[in-house]
């Protein structure tokens, strides 16, 4: 069965610090990978996604993620965070044998201190 693990439940950073949020999944087949973000009081929205091709994916607001197939990982990065990046971040995976199911991680709450 597919599963997604996000390493940190809470992260606190100062502005301008670099960010890396870990995400590992368990599934042996072909996958689509996603990062969603939920800003306080807003919809859950898509940050970036990987379907195929270049494993380094760039998303909105300066975020990027790298798919490392050998490590079953899809870590999210941003070189310099801003206070406005305070949000909850969800990693998700959809496998080719998963039917209609996209599996979400438990989420990581990021708080950026101004």
């Amino acid at each position, binding site marked *: 069965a597919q599963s*997604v693990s996000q390493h940190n*439940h809470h992260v606190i950073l100062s502005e301008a610090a670099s960010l890396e949020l870990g995400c590992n999944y368990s599934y042996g087949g*072909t*996958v*689509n990978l*996603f990062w*969603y973000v939920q800003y306080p009081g*807003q*919809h*859950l*929205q*898509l940050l970036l*996604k990987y*379907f195929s091709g270049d494993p380094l994916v760039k998303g909105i607001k300066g975020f990027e993620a790298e798919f490392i197939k050998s490590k079953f990982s899809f870590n999210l990065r941003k070189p310099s965070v801003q206070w406005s990046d305070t949000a909850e971040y*969800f990693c*998700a995976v*959809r496998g*080719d044998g998963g*039917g*209609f*199911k*996209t599996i*979400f*991680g*438990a*989420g990581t709450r990021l708080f950026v201190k101004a």
Partner: protein
Amino acid sequence: SQTIHQWPATLVQPVGSPLSLECTVEGTSNPNLYWYRQAAGRGLQLLFYSVGIGQISSEVPQNLSASRPQDRQFILSSKKLLLSDSGFYLCAWSVSPGQLGETQYFGPGTRLLVL
């Protein structure tokens, strides 16, 4: 462009009362529709999905049911709410049904408190 609406935004209901949460999508035809429950620290749990009118699949046994009376309308219901039904309910839509390459887009959610 496509938009997704959920209402109500917040709901407080007594135990044993019925429930009806509504989700509608605009700007697309024959979408896949999903109901999720989001619990703090536990991510999103898929409750139901639908690939067409009247077609509902349940992912977990529970006190809830779903219906899709129209192409772009998805309703989450209960006949008698339990305390454990409290949570944040999200509706989502997608196209490219059931295949890799599908991306889901989420509504604003309904926060349900059962007392």
